[in-house]
């Protein structure tokens, strides 16, 4: 039940990564990167119940918080402000 869901999620993720490579301008690439992060967090939770290892969910929480920090950092840089 979980493996087809994981494969569809990976295909959606590839579409977002394609927008990172072709997209015009920095904010579009950053938006695509943020979408990819969301999909990867959901994929990690799905893979955690697929592998039946309960400790794997912690990776998803840590990744969600850290990628949020990175998105804010790059957004501050695009805004052109001192930080």
């Amino acid at each position, binding site marked *: 039940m979980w*493996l087809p869901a994981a494969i569809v999620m990976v295909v959606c993720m590839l579409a977002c990564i394609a927008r*990172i490579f072709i997209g015009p301008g*920095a904010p579009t690439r950053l938006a695509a*990167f943020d979408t990819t992060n969301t999909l990867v967090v959901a994929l990690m939770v799905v893979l955690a119940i697929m592998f039946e*290892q309960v400790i*794997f969910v912690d*990776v998803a929480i840590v990744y969600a918080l850290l*990628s949020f*920090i990175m998105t804010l950092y790059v957004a501050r840089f695009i805004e052109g402000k001192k930080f």
Partner: protein
Amino acid sequence: MIEAAVLHIITPLALVVCAIFVALFRDLLYAAVSLGVLSLLLSLEFFLLKAPDVAIAEAGVGAAVTTAIFIIAIRATKRME
């Protein structure tokens, strides 16, 4: 288990494509964002190989610290290569 092999094939291929695009971009900000995607996929690959501790370390170093250092370096120098 042909379906499980699909994940193990797609993720390293996308990783290699990301690495090629990091080398191709002339704008260094785009290269930094591509490097963030590379570390994301590397973390996912460690996750698929059932090493969650390495995945946490890669997420912390790759997503937060490396990108912050690159952004500070781009601010201090020129953005275009």
